[in-house]
C-alpha cells in the first residue's frame, strides 16, 4: 500500500502555497470534458460539488436523502472556528494550528492541520459572501464565542444553528450550479460500491432508493464525502441514515482505513433513558460557556437526587463537586471533549451520577442566570433550552440540565495523502470520512471548519491537479460503463442484496444493529481494554454470522424498501466494527478519545506512548476470514513538540 503523504516542500506556512503553485491546471475549455462524481452533499460534498461545477467540470452529486439540504452537517449547532483574531485576543493561524494539533493529542499530520488553520479565514469570508447570517455585534462586526480546548474566542456562530446555516450556504451554491446544469443531482441514491479499472477509481454503483434500480456511473475522479461512522454504536448523535457503507466499500476495494478506533464521545448529550430510543441528542458544547458541570460530592446525596427525594437546587454549594473546575482549573468547564467525557464517566462510575439510570451529570445555569439575567441566557441558548424541554419535559431555566457523553464524531476515516486522495488513485475523501485533521480528538467547532475547508478549498484544487496530471484530455469522460469492472461490481452489489432478501430468518436489521451497538459501546466506547476488545471481536463475528443466517427482511429489491436499506448498512457496520476493535486493540496506548484503561496516570489521565505509537495506523483489507494488515505512516512533528497534553 502506497502511503506516501506527498507533503509539499518548504516551511509549513509555505506548503499549501507551494502545492497550489505546483498543481497542474486544466485549461478552462477542457474542464467540461472531465467528469467528477461527488458522493454526499454535506459541507464537504456540497462544497466540493458546487466549486467543481463552478470551475467548469462536469459534476454528478449523489445523496441518500430526498434533498441535498438534509445532509447531517445541518445538525451541527455551536459554531465554526477561524483564526481571524477579530477579538484581538492573540489568535493567529499558528495558534489555531497549535491548538488543533495539541487538541488531537499529537496524532494528526502537521501539514494538513496547518492548511486547515490557514484556509479557516477564507471560509468565513466565503460564507459571509454567500449570505450566511452569522451572529453580529451592534457595531455590525461578526461576533465570536469560546469553545472547548482554546483560550481565545474564535468561534463564529449563527444562533444554535451554525451547521444549518453553513450547509444551506453550500446548498445555495450547489443549487445554483444545478440550475445552470453544471452539476447533476441524484437524490435518494445510495452508493453501494466504487469501481476500479486497473486499480484506479473510475466510477460507482448506486441503488435508486425509490425504484430499487441499480445503476453504473463512470467518472474521471470520485470524491467521497460520506461522513463518519458513529452509528456503529447504534445510539449516537448522528442522523438515522448516517452509515459507513461508502467508506467501507472503498476500503474493501483497497483504500486504506486510518485510525478507525479514534471516535469522539461528546460530553454534552441528553442521557439515554429507555430501550425504545433511536438516537441520542446533542446539546451544543457552547452551553459550557455558561453552564457549570457538577455532581454531588457524596453518593448518598446523588442517590437522593436520582430517586427524586431531593431537588438538585437544594443540594448545598459545599456538597457539590464541580469536577471540571476542580481538576482543570485553567480550562474549567471548557476542557476538551475527550477529557470532559471521561471525567463524567468517572463520576458516574463512582456512583455519583444523577440521572435515573445513574448515568448523567448536571449542567447548571443557575449562576449564569443570576449573573447575566435570564434574557441573556435565553438569547444565547433559547433554542437549546426548548429542545431540552421538548425531549425531557424539564425546564432547564429552573432545574439544571442532565447530560451524559454520547458517540458523536469519528476522527478516523479513509486514509488520504496531503491532496486528500486515498490509497486508490482517483478516489478522494473529504470531510469527516477522511482521517486527516483531528488526530485522536477533535476540538469543538472544528468539524464545520474541516468540512468546508476540504469542500471549497482543497478538493477542487487537488482534483484538478489529479485530472491535469493523470488523466490525459484524450481520455477524459471516456470511461465505458460496459467495462467488465462495472459488471463485476454491479454483480457483487446485486448478489449481496439478493442474499440478504433470501435468508428469511427471524431477526430484524434493527434488532441486530442494537446488539452491535451494545457490544461497541461496552467494549470499544469511552474505556477500552485488551480483554474486552478481544471478546468484542469474537462477539462481532458471532453476530455477523447470525445476521447472515437469521436476517428477516420484508419486501423485495425493486421497490422503496426501508428495511433493505437498513440491512445493507448494518451488514457493513458488522464488518467495519471488527476493524475498529482490531485497531483499538493494536493501539496499546491511550490518546485523545482512545482510552485504554491499561494506560493511565494515577489521576486517570490518558498516557500516550510516543515511542511506539506516534504513527497513523492504516489498515488494509485482507478478506473477512483474515485479520486486516496494518501499515504505519510515521508522524513527524517539526513545529509542535508533543508534550503531555495538560489542561490543568
Amino acid at each position, binding site marked *: 500500500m502506497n502511503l506516501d503523504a506527498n507533503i509539499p516542500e518548504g516551511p509549513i506556512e509555505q506548503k499549501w502555497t507551494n502545492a497550489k503553485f505546483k498543481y497542474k491546471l486544466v485549461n478552462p475549455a477542457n474542464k467540461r470534458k472531465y467528469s467528477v462524481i461527488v458522493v454526499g452533499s454535506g459541507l464537504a460534498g456540497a462544497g466540493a460539488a458546487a466549486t467543481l461545477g463552478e470551475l467548469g467540470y462536469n459534476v454528478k452529486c449523489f445523496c441518500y436523502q430526498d434533498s441535498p439540504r438534509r445532509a447531517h452537517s445541518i445538525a451541527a449547532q455551536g459554531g465554526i472556528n477561524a483564526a481571524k483574531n477579530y477579538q484581538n485576543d492573540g489568535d493567529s493561524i499558528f495558534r489555531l494550528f497549535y491548538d488543533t494539533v495539541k487538541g488531537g493529542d499529537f496524532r494528526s499530520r502537521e501539514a494538513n492541520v496547518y492548511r486547515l488553520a490557514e484556509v479557516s479565514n477564507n471560509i468565513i469570508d466565503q460564507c459571509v459572501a454567500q449570505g450566511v447570517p*452569522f451572529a453580529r455585534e451592534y457595531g455590525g462586526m461578526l461576533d465570536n464565542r469560546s469553545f472547548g480546548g482554546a483560550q481565545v474566542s474564535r468561534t463564529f456562530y449563527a444562533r444554535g444553528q451554525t451547521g444549518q446555516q453553513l450547509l444551506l450556504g453550500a446548498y*445555495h451554491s450547489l443549487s445554483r450550479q444545478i440550475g445552470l446544469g453544471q452539476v447533476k443531482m441524484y437524490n435518494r441514491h445510495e452508493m453501494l460500491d466504487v469501481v476500479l479499472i486497473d486499480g484506479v477509481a473510475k466510477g460507482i454503483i448506486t441503488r435508486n432508493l*425509490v425504484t430499487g434500480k441499480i445503476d453504473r456511473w463512470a467518472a474521471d475522479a470520485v470524491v467521497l464525502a460520506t461522513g463518519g461512522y458513529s452509528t456503529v454504536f447504534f445510539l449516537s448523535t448522528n442522523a438515522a441514515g448516517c452509515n459507513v457503507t461508502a467508506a467501507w466499500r472503498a476500503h474493501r476495494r483497497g483504500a486504506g482505513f486510518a485510525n478507525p478506533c479514534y471516535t469522539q464521545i461528546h460530553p454534552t448529550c441528553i442521557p439515554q433513558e429507555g430501550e425504545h430510543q433511536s438516537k441520542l441528542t446533542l446539546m451544543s458544547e457552547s452551553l459550557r460557556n455558561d453552564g457549570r458541570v457538577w455532581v454531588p460530592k457524596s453518593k448518598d446525596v446523588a442517590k437522593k437526587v436520582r430517586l427524586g427525594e431531593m431537588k438538585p437546587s437544594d443540594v448545598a454549594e459545599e456538597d457539590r463537586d464541580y469536577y471540571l473546575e476542580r481538576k482543570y482549573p485553567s480550562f474549567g468547564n471548557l476542557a476538551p471533549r475527550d477529557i470532559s467525557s471521561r471525567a463524567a464517566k468517572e463520576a458516574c462510575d463512582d456512583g455519583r451520577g444523577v440521572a435515573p439510570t445513574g448515568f448523567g451529570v448536571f449542567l447548571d445555569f443557575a449562576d449564569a442566570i443570576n449573573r447575566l439575567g435570564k434574557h441573556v441566557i435565553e438569547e444565547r441558548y433559547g433554542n437549546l433550552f426548548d429542545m431540552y424541554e421538548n425531549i425531557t*419535559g424539564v425546564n432547564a431555566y429552573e432545574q439544571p440540565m442532565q447530560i451524559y457523553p454520547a458517540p458523536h464524531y469519528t476522527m478516523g476515516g479513509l486514509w488520504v495523502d496531503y491532496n486528500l486522495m486515498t490509497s486508490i488513485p482517483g478516489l478522494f475523501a473529504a470531510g469527516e470520512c477522511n482521517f486527516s485533521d483531528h488526530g485522536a480528538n477533535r476540538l469543538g467547532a472544528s468539524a464545520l471548519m474541516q468540512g468546508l475547508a476540504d469542500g471549497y478549498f482543497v478538493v477542487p484544487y487537488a482534483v484538478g491537479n489529479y485530472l491535469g496530471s493523470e488523466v490525459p484530455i484524450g481520455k477524459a469522460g471516456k470511461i465505458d460503463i460496459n467495462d467488465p469492472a462495472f459488471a463485476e461490481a454491479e454483480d457483487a452489489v446485486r448478489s449481496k442484496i439478493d442474499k440478504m432478501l433470501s435468508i428469511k430468518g427471524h431477526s*430484524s436489521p434493527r434488532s441486530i444493529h442494537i446488539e452491535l451497538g451494545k457490544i461497541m459501546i461496552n467494549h470499544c466506547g469511552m474505556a477500552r481494554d485488551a480483554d474486552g476488545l478481544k471478546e468484542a471481536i469474537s462477539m462481532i463475528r458471532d453476530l455477523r454470522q447470525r445476521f447472515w443466517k437469521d436476517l428477516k427482511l*420484508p419486501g423485495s429489491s425493486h421497490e*422503496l424498501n426501508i428495511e433493505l436499506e437498513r440491512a445493507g448498512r448494518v451488514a457493513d457496520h458488522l464488518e467495519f466494527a471488527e476493524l475498529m476493535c482490531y485497531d483499538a486493540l493494536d493501539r496499546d496506548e491511550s490518546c485523545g478519545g482512545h482510552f485504554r484503561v491499561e494506560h493511565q496516570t494515577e489521576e486517570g489521565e490518558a498516557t500516550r506512548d510516543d515511542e511506539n505509537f506516534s504513527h497513523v495506523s492504516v489498515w488494509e483489507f485482507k478478506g473477512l476470514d483474515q485479520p486486516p494488515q496494518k501499515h504505519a505512516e510515521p508522524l513527524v512533528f517539526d513545529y509542535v513538540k508533543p508534550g503531555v497534553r495538560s489542561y490543568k
Partner: protein
Amino acid sequence: MSERNISITLKVWRQKDADSAGAFETYRMESVSTSSSFLEMLDLLNEQLIEEDKDPIAFDHDCREGICGMCSLVINGIPHGKNKLQTTCQLHMRSFRDGDTITIEPYRSKPFPVTRDLVVDRTPMDTIMQAGGYVTQRIGAAQDANALPISKELADKAMDAAACIGCGACVAVCPNASAMLFTSAKVSQLNMLPQGKPEKDRRALRMVGAMDAAGFGNCTNIGECEAACPKGISLDFIARMNRDYAVASVKQFLGMVGSV
C-alpha cells in the same frame, strides 16, 4: 418526568407506490412509553409488522432532532402534529393519552406526489431554490468578512428567515398548496442582506416564476402556513416578497432587469 406506558390505535395511510391507490390500515400498539418520540413509536410498530410478516411503513426521517427537515407526516390532520413549533421527529408520545386513536397520513399536495406510504416527493422545492435561492459569487474570491458591516438587527432578521428547514409543512397545510412561505423566507433572507441586493429583482422574479411553474398554488392569505411552520417563519416575509416582486415586475416592464 413522570413517564408511563399508554396504548394507542393508529390509522395509517398505506400506499404501495405512486401509481397504486392507497387506503388506511388500523394498528394497535400496547404499552408505548410516553418518553419515546413519535418516530420511535413508528420504529417499534415497524418491528411489530416485520414480526407479523407484513410490510413496514415507509416514512421519511433523518436527523431526528428537528433540523434537517426530512420528516413530514400529517398527524391527526395537521402537518407535524398539533404542537406548535415542532417537527414530527420532535413530537413525543407524552403529547398523547392512553386510548387515543391517531391518524397518520402523508402530505397531500398536488406538487408532492406520494412515493410510498407516508413518503412524498418534495423535489419541486429544490427546483425553486435552483432558480434563485443563492447569491451569485465565486467561491474563494470573497473579501474580508468584516469589511461588510451588517447591523445586528438586520442579521437577526435574516436569521429569522434563514431558519426555514424546507420541510414543506407550509405547502401541505395550505388549501391552495402554495409554497409562498417557503419561497418568501429565502427571498427575504437574501434580499434584505447587502450581499443579496444586486440580484434582488431577478431573484424575486425567478423564484416566484419557478414556484408557479412547479405547480404550487396561489397565496390567498389564509395564514395556516405560519401556524404549521415548525420554525415559526412569519407571514411578514410573504408580504415582503410580494413587495419585492411588485417592484421587480415594474422594473422588468420598464426594461430595468436583465433577462430572467
